[in-house]
């Protein structure tokens, strides 16, 4: 079996295996084994990818396989991967792996929990390997829908409301997206060839600009909802606040990236003229969302809300980089996807672990945790520092690449947008340090906190894995950046080429 399909098969098999598990111990062992296998497979993929590239394979997508599915509609199960996809898959593998450890002590309906969680991951993996829009969309929805159960059953707080809101908003996004994809399909052969959903094929044709103007916003917004595009981000605070730990991790860490990845890979890549023409409008939205999310986070009281708003801000930065439409900025945006994925997963994991001990997420009810749980607190500080873009951790690399790239756009509009977006790094520092100050530092407010214990071994596995990820990218960014940049060349040539006439018309 080819290496890419394995990414869907392994979790599926894991799900089947879990069905026969008898209790929590077996369930989590199976999950851990399955997801470790997945992680190993991801490493294998990276190696295989480099081997192939070093061997001189310069195809845009490697490991391509195409199996015809619906013949008359020319729907295929088409898979293939480039550097960006490799990075995203590695990210997903890491996060689902740690997610399993973060939910090690799931008492209530453990089988169902792990099954839903892994189905979700299956969807994500499937999405990243797909080259066919239909299959891609299918996996996309597979990834979204288990969220309802995961939040509804195992969540906390107003979980039913949050779960419903999250699901409906995301599915609303995907509904709009569906129209966009169908539109892409019917315009995929303007010269009368065979209609297709295949990304590579569609990229070759020149879609009429009128059609692009109609379908680009649909597709972009459709994906954008999942990528927390202002003003469609409000599912995020409630959803994250109610979701159980592993779900928040996976959702903020990976699923939200699905949105921005799709916006890039589908909306912008396949409809480059419209992307060039309309980027200004979305750029205003995302610039707002970067600053807005950061300000929104400043006064929140609930740890998860803070992180959710911070995710809005950071994911806004991803879209911001993408909409800058040049290689460097998009490179940065994709690094930011990875970086924010790991970082926010770490955040949510830690919040979950802290919550599991103190049974509150309100920062004012806690204090001085550094004293009683130094490991978790130190990890939290590291995550915070990564979030505010400390060099040596991943956030810095991503943000700087985005800003440097954004500054290559030589006009006042983009400059102003960049400066506004860049100012978020200060606000980020404000809310991160505020939390650290109240939550971890200061005197211990509650006597019973003295009895709390530090992280257990499985929690340490999760946390350390993620920290290694953050620090690894932060210290040796060249490999990741290079991996992505290589794959960006053909895409960017495509987009920039399309933008040339358009840009000369709208230059400010």
């Amino acid at each position, binding site marked *: 079996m080819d290496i890419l399909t394995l990414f869907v098969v392994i979790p599926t098999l894991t799900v089947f295996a879990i069905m026969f598990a008898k209790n929590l111990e077996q369930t989590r062992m199976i999950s851990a084994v399955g997801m470790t296998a997945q992680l190993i497979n991801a490493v294998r993929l990276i190696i295989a990818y480099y081997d192939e590239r070093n061997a001189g394979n310069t195809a845009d997508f490697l490991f391509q396989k195409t199996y015809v599915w*619906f013949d008359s509609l020319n729907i295929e199960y088409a898979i293939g991967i480039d550097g960006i996809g490799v990075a995203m898959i590695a990210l997903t593998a890491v996060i689902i792996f740690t997610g399993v450890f973060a939910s090690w002590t799931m008492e209530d309906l453990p089988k169902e929990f792990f099954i839903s969680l892994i189905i979700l991951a299956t969807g994500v993996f499937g999405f990243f390997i797909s080259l066919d829009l239909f299959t891609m969309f299918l996996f996309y929805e597979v990834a979204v829908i288990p969220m309802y159960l995961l939040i509804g059953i195992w969540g906390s707080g107003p979980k039913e409301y949050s779960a419903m809101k999250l699901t409906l908003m995301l599915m609303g996004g995907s509904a709009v997206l*569906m129209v966009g994809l169908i539109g892409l399909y019917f315009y995929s052969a303007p010269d009368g060839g065979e209609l297709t959903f295949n990304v590579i094929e569609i990229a070759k044709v020149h879609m009429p600009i009128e059609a692009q103007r109609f379908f680009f916003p649909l597709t972009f917004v459709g994906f954008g909802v999942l990528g927390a595009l202002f003003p469609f981000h409000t599912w995020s605070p409630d959803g994250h606040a109610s979701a159980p730990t592993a779900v928040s991790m996976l959702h903020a860490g990976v699923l939200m990236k699905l949105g921005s990845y799709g916006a890039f890979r589908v909306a912008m890549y396949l409809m480059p003229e419209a992307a060039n023409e309309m980027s200004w409008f979305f750029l205003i939205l995302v610039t707002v969302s970067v600053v807005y999310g950061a300000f929104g986070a400043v006064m929140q009281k609930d740890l998860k809300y803070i992180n959710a708003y911070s995710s809005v801000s950071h994911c806004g930065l991803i879209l911001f980089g993408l909409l800058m439409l040049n290689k460097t900025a998009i490179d940065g945006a994709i690094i930011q996807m990875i970086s924010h994925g790991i970082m926010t997963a770490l955040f949510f994991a830690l919040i979950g672990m802290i919550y599991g001990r103190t049974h509150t997420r309100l920062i004012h009810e806690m204090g001085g945790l550094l004293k009683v749980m130094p490991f978790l607190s130190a990890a939290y500080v590291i995550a915070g520092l990564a979030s505010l873009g400390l060099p040596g951790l991943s956030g810095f690399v991503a943000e700087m690449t985005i800003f440097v790239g954004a500054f290559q756009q030589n006009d006042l509009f983009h400059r102003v947008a960049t400066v506004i977006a860049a100012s978020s790094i200060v606000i980020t520092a404000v809310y991160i340090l505020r939390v650290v100050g109240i939550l971890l530092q200061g005197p211990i407010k509650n006597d019973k906190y003295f009895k709390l214990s530090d992280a257990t071994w499985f929690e340490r596995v999760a946390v350390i894995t993620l920290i290694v990820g953050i620090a690894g990218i932060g210290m040796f960014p060249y490999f990741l950046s290079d991996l992505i940049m290589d794959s960006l060349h053909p895409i960017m040539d495509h987009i920039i080429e399309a933008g040339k006439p358009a840009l000369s018309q709208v230059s400010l």
Partner: protein
Amino acid sequence: MSFEQVLLMRNELVLVIAMLIVLAAEIFLSGNNRKLVIPIAVGAFAIATIIAWFPQPEGVIFGGMYQTDTLRQIMKNVLNIGVLLIFIQSMPWLRKPEQNFQMSEFYLIIIATLIGMGFMISSGDFLMFYLGLETATIPVAALAAYDKGKRKSAEAGIKLILSSALSSGILLYGLSMIYGTTGSIYFHEVANAWGNTPLQMLAVVFFMSGMFFKLSIVPFHFWTADVYEGAPVLVTSYLSVISKAAAAFIFMIILFKVFPTSIELWKNVLYALTIITITLGNIFAIRQKNMKRFLAFSSIAQAGFILLGIIGGNAMGMTAVVYFALIYIFSNLAAFGVVAAISNVTGKEYMNDYDGLYRTNPKLSLVMMLALFSLAGIPPVAGFFGKFFLFMAAAKSGYYILVLIAVINTIVSLYYYLLVVKAMFVNKNEHPIAWFKSDWATRIALIASVLGIIAVGLISHIWEYINAFSFGI
């Protein structure tokens, strides 16, 4: 007329035979043996289904009144499978002592209506169409009133028979004008003589109104919810699935074959009614508490989606409608199957009775969830494929705005489907429905439905097979 020609009606013939067998069993069995009617009926019908399955040539008989081709065969088989599933589900219900004296009627009536549908689907002229339609409708009213001891059942019966009589009256009035203006009742002759005069337009609208009644398109849908609620669960599922699928199919065939030149007219009608139907169906469904009534309104919205496949008037649409009908049958039967199983054992039919169902009856809940997801169009279950292709069919003819409105409506529908999921999985309940062991018949039916729900989408050959025989305007 040679024997081969008669055999073209094989589907209807075997159904008639099955019906006769049931009738004979009813007559000859007595006392304790009476209960044998049930397996005999189901067995006979199963055999009939299998026989009808074999491929057969296309042909025209009765001077064009009856015609058959592969696509119609497919449709009939789809209906047969659905009915078979209903029959299997019906076994525990009919075995209950209070149904003791009227077991065979259920099978007789359903088989009779199925024969009517067969003729309707195969009709080549409006007379055959009308006869089939009435054969398929009138007995169902008796079925709706099947629970003779219940007020609701009687009310459902009277509502169904009277409103369906009114609708067929109006439909007939339209047919009479079609006859008056074209001088024929044969489909191909009518199509040839069609001139799009105002009177003919009027006739088409009357005809369509009658069909919309069957399809329960807003505003012709009001009977649906009341009848569905009052009728026994299995009758409801029969009504919501089988009659609707058959009506949708023949409606599409007649539009494509007889009135293709009036496409401007019916396209606009369908455009408006699709939006109204989906939206109102959803809005009405949201507030429902009774599961049957809830599914009734959801089926109204689903009918709106079927119109999406018809409106484009293309071959893809026809494939999508048949394909969707197949998926819809499996999904809805699974949902109704669960409702029926629970209703049989506990008599509970309300949504809040389902609170905490997963913790006591996980398998039933899972089946229900899959069915609802399929109805809502969530992958990887088949409903997703059905809906996606319907949307594609509409989009193919350029109705992107309509598709957009429809997909946004799917969010509303997802909301109320999730309400049920929420009740089963999330809500807490002090006194949930206790665990019970479903009997083997229910299980077989549900497993078959679930297999259908999963397989029909993923296995592309089904779509390809239907697609090979469909046609556009």
